[in-house]
């Protein structure tokens, strides 16, 4: 399919430019007539967004989400590539599960799917999984996300073995013995009589991971940073040359633990929403590039798993369809991040970390393109989501940055009906 994209503001710049797409790649011109000419009328055009951390729930939990609904939801949020974590059933800890995910995504999906393999067999934290064989089928990183690589001995081996295959290691940082709680430990958890998870649970593990990476001279990636202390530790480590990268999620720079008041289970996640000081520190971390990536941690759950007593409800929220708009509204519009730095967090840096060769609109690059309306506000309505799940705390938010068009590998995967 040949597409002629007209009148786009590339990277939100001021000049109107055209983009040509042929054979799934960005082209300097088309070899003949375009199959479709799309006039985006001055909307902002970016390299397709890449989510380095999400949960598609497929295989095993298709009642929450599957590869089709998940990638449709991703495409609606402007994502052209997504990286699902391995906590499926069966666990994505071997080549055949990776192969089946990749194959289903290729035939039925609406985005490139680059799976993340389990760091340990069965996510059990005991033995290394088969990184080499999984990489041949398409994994781009390893992680035991949902749980930390708890034992320092295993972490050492994971980092060493992953380096043989040049595979990034993404660790969910949390000391499990401190994490027996339902929300952040603080004034609000005390007021609500809920068990708290202290920020120290996250900070201690981040600090251990940094020290291990430093000792081995190997890279490590810290998942979903939510604390002021975590940002400080990573900043200091980067300054002395440790090969550490980090991600955060929109909810950590938009919301605080106060969202839990009234026992709203859509504010329940892990790591938990923290305090205003933490939220501001996350924004600082994004500003000074301590934090490299913004990921969604898209975590769809069935209503039956969320409409429950607070402590019994599952952790997590969906994120694909709000991530760009939340970042644009809460980071770019107030002037914390330039549009360019924001897109670096959502496309360029994830591509770099995972070696995807994307995150660019250069001629010859895969035609992964996202087009957003940056001018008109919209009211986010959870019932318009393409995800199967509805667990979002952002229903009713007025946001900027609605997706107009998403093109993944030269194929239109989402198009707003005007």
């Amino acid at each position, binding site marked *: 399919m040949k597409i002629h994209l007209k009148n786009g503001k590339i990277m939100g710049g001021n000049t109107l430019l055209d983009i040509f797409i042929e054979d799934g790649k960005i082209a300097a011109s088309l070899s003949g007539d375009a199959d479709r000419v799309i006039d985006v009328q001055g909307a902002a055009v970016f390299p397709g967004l890449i989510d380095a951390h999400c949960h598609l729930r497929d295989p095993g939990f298709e009642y929450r989400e599957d590869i089709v609904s998940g990638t449709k939801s991703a495409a609606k949020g402007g994502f052209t590539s997504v990286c699902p974590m391995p906590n499926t059933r069966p666990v994505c800890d071997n080549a055949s599960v990776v192969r089946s995910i990749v194959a289903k995504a290729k035939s039925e999906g609406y985005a490139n799917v680059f799976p993340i393999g389990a760091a340990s067999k069965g996510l059990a934290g005991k033995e290394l999984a088969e990184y080499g064989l999984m990489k041949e089928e398409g994994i781009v990183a390893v992680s035991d996300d949902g749980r930390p690589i708890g034992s320092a001995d295993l972490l050492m081996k994971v980092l060493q073995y992953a380096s043989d295959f040049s595979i990034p290691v993404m660790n969910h940082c949390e000391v499990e013995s401190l994490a027996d709680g339902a929300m952040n430990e*603080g004034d609000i958890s005390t*007021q609500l009589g*809920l068990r*708290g998870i202290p920020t120290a649970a996250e900070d201690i593990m981040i600090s251990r991971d940094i020290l291990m990476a430093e000792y081995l001279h190997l890279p490590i990636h810290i998942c979903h940073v939510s604390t002021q202390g975590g940002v400080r530790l990573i900043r200091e480590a980067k300054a002395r040359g440790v090969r550490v990268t980090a991600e955060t999620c929109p909810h950590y720079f938009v919301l605080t633990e106060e969202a839990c008041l009234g*026992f709203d289970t859509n504010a329940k996640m892990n790591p938990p929403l923290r305090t205003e000081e933490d939220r501001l520190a996350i924004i600082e971390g994004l500003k000074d590039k301590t934090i490299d990536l913004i990921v969604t941690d898209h975590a769809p759950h069935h209503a039956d798993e969320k409409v*429950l*007593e607070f*402590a019994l409800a599952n952790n997590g929220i969906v994120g694909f369809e709000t991530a760009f708009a939340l970042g644009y509204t809460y980071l770019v519009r107030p002037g914390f991040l330039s549009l360019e730095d924001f897109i670096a967090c959502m496309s360029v840096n994830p591509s770099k970390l995972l070696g995807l060769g994307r995150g660019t609109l250069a001629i010859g690059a895969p035609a992964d393109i996202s087009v957003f309306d940056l001018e008109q506000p919209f009211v986010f309505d959870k019932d318009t989501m393409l995800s199967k799940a509805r667990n979002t705390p952002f229903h009713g938010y007025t946001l900027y940055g609605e997706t107009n068009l998403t093109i993944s590998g030269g194929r239109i995967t989402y198009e707003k009906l005007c």
Partner: protein
Amino acid sequence: MKLRNKDLLGMKELQADEIEEILKTAEMMKMVMKSGNKKTSHLQGKSVVTLFYENSTRTRLSFEMASKFMGAASANISTSGSSVNKGESLLDTARTIDVMSTDIIVMRHNQSGAPHFIAPHMNASVVNAGDGMNEHPTQALLDMYTMKEKYGSLDGLEVAICGDLYHSRVARSNAIGLSKMGAKVRVAGPATMIPHGFGKMGCTVCSSIAEAVEGADVVMGLRLQLERQSKSLFPSVPEYARYYSIDQKTLLLAKPDALVMHPGPCNHGVEMPTVVYDSPQSVINEQVTNGVAVRMAVLYLLMARRNQE
């Protein structure tokens, strides 16, 4: 005056004038209770169901007696013997009760926020009879009633609350409620049992039981909640009793006629020795009596609000 909300979920949700109104109404209810004919028609033709997911003697019985004294049709469900044992969810169970034309559901649950979770789904008014570690508002109300009965006013009263603050919904409700009424609350317990930011609920956190008790008008012990100790918060019951109980010597630090209170049930010799529990200063049994009057008042006021709608 009318209560502002359909439900009574906690002291956090009540304002000072509503607390005042409940305590005033309880005075009348106590007179009814003490009269020879313990019968009113305030709840005649109405129904009250108590739904208890946790054990209870005082709270459940006092709600049942309160409903019966006021002529309501009352019933109770506990988890054993109900479909909860077949795995029915809280929401489905509560809805089942609600659609039987129930006016008030009194609920106790081991999860903080459980009544807040079901209340918006119910036509019935929901009364929180204790939710996890969050609140136990009718206990705080009866405690406040008992203090007010003795001192006339709560304003400026110095109240020491001692013990297992971490697990205590009674401490939270009392700290929040008493500070709304102008009392000065001081709390103390093992450092492992003082949750982060407890003082922000309107009280002063003290470093020892003695410091909290000194000069107090009211000394309240909290039950050591042995069934909720999932983590090791103290080494042993004897050590706890040695350093954190309200014994006779500690009590001497309080004002001479200070009230001794306990929400019950008491672990004798742990939170306080029997000699303190049974001392002339102890109003622990009066607390139980007042519990019925306060719960009559709560049911009455919630029903009055329903009748006006």
